């Protein structure tokens, strides 16, 4: 092997190594806080606070996880979160996709304004919605019900769905449906076929809105009263704001379990999320 070639291979190897090192550092940065939550949740109660803090717990225990149900109705909260997010997604994705299809395929008066409003909706802090939404829920008798939380979650899900799905539908040329109709499909069938093509886009949207709804705190806090409808973020906040004697071990345990469905989706999210926004350009 010539000296030049050897040098180049050496340089390439080092730069490779360098890249892995940097990525590894980034990984530590990204994962350490999460590791810290997990390690706190497996420390026994009297070891949680120590000076100096123990990075690696010397005693492992699962008592915090066991105590979870004593301290808060964890399973109920988890179930509520699941139902509410599921409901918000089911409703929001259906209505939103329909609207997106309409916006993409048909020109009608006001369509541009509608789209504009949808984008602007993202610019309003959710704080502004809290009081009016509470009044609406209260007047409709929806306080402390699943639907009462699903409704404000639609504020998060709907505009985003419409915006995203429209750009996905825009990707499918109109000629496609026209061709299908020439082949003898009804209008409706052509539409359904187009929807099936956009399924990956729907998947992406679903994953992103799932995150927003699952993690949502402010609305759930305002329109719920009892564990009948309170979600897990609210449950965690409840424990955080005791007068004294905050059960940190239990809180971190609950937080960790709360994130598990989300971790599981992590793989899919990272695959789809990026492509999403790029198409939205």
């Amino acid at each position, binding site marked *: 092997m010539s000296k030049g070639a050897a040098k180049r291979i050496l340089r390439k190897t080092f730069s490779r190594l360098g890249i892995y090192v940097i990525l590894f550092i980034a990984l530590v940065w990204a994962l350490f806080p999460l590791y810290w939550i997990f390690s706190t949740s497996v420390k026994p109660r009297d070891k949680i606070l120590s*000076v100096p803090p123990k990075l690696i717990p010397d005693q492992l225990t699962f008592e915090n996880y066991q105590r979870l149900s004593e301290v808060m109705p964890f399973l109920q909260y988890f179930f509520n979160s699941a139902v509410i997010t599921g409901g918000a997604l089911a409703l929001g994705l259906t209505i939103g996709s329909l609207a997106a299809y309409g916006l993409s395929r048909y020109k009608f008066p006001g369509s541009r304004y509608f789209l504009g409003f949808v984008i602007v909706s993202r610019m309003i802090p959710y704080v502004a919605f809290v009081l009016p939404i509470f009044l609406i829920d209260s007047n409709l008798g929806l306080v402390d019900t699943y639907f009462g939380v699903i409704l404000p979650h639609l504020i998060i899900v709907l505009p985003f769905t419409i915006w995203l799905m429209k750009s996905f539908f825009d990707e499918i040329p109109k000629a496609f449906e026209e061709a299908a109709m020439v082949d003898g499909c009804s209008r409706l069938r052509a539409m359904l076929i187009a929807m099936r093509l956009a399924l990956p886009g729907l998947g992406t949207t679903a994953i992103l809105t799932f995150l927003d709804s699952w993690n949502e705190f402010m609305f759930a806090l305002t329109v719920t*009263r009892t564990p009948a409808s309170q979600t897990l973020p609210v449950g965690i906040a409840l424990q955080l704001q005791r007068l004294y*004697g*905050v059960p940190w071990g239990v809180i971190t345990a609950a937080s960790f379990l709360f994130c598990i469905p989300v971790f599981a989706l992590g793989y899919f999210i990272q695959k789809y999320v990026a492509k999403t926004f790029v198409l939205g350009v």
Partner: protein
Amino acid sequence: MVWATVLVVIIIIAGIAAYWWYYTQPSTPTPAAKVINIAWTEGPEFDFINSKVSEFTAQTGITVNFLKIPREHIVERLMLEMLSSTPSVDGAVIYVLEAPTLASTGGLVDLYTYRPKSEWISESFYQDQLEMLEFNGSLYYVPSIWNGALINFYRTDLFSNETLKTLFKTEFNYNLTVPTTPEQLMDVARFFSEQGYIGIHLQLTTSEMGAGAYTFYPPLAAYYGGGLYNTTTGQITCNSTGSVHALEYLLNLTQYAQPTVLEDGTFEAEQAIMQGQSGGKQLAMADQWSYMYPMLPNATYPWNISERIFPQQPDMLGVTILKNSPKKDYVWQFVNWTSSFEITKGTTLATPKAPCRSDVANDPEVKANYWVKVIVDSYGGHKPLVPVIKNPHATEIYEAMMRRLGEAFSDFQAAGHTNAHAIAQEKLDTLYGDIKTILGI
């Protein structure tokens, strides 16, 4: 084309309006079930009452639903409930600082309408505690759920250490004792600080009404003849001589306390006492909450408690009745029950706190506890409880105070722990302007 759009929009709006109107018709009143919803906070007191509430239901036939709401969001929830046309919270546990704001909205029920003041007093409720919670002559709750006192915690081994005692005598010319006056406190704190300890661990926090603010400063200011804002006369007294002197004292004291404010208040304070140290230094004394007393045997070092030197702000939680509830009378029965002798005795013993009735304080079983005397003496006993600002804008005023105190502490530190008087004067003058703006005068 335009017409069609307008038509569609009108149809949609009409549809929504119809739906709305249909649902906001007052529903036929369901027979008032004997169920009340009480907005509640977690804690040992809750656990105790929860364990006893079945007795209440058996006696009165009223079922109680405890709605657990995060402490810091109760005021928000109550405000929303008051604005709602279908409220479903009948009573709530509220805190002494929230009471003036909530009371002035007119949304709370005056307990004196159920039982006149003279009867409350003859029932052996402490008069000064009742008057603490009165707003414009009406009483909105009694501190039956929580009545926390700040007491002085001190290290028994340090105070009986012969070497330290000799050193102290040499420097200050009197015997080392657990302090009972402000001057003594300053001396003792300084002494221990010089010896490498944290002289006194203070309740200075950013998250709970900040910077030594609520728990330490207002009563200190009152002690020296100052204050913040006098509700009766309408005078802003925050930069009076007494107030300035109080802040000057506090600033000077902080140099012998833990370095700066705590980040999570009570929680860190509890840990500091249990582990006996903070920031690498051991604690000699601490000005902390009474609930910690039963934990002391498990602490790393030996502690005991003594009467607090300074007056106190009330730290009270109790049940209030919401005016737009159709079940007010039932909630009153619940209020009555939670402030009865048996239940008050139970909550007082569940976690050491000041009782709200003297018959509980004098009960032999209660009195047998060492901490009762210390707490009762500290909390309105030898020195009066200092009233909260009874103005709807109280919360804003306390927040402004917290800010300026925080700035005073920072400036004092930056100046190398000198110039306390000038800094205090300047910050309190600024606070004067703040309060004027808040009150709109």
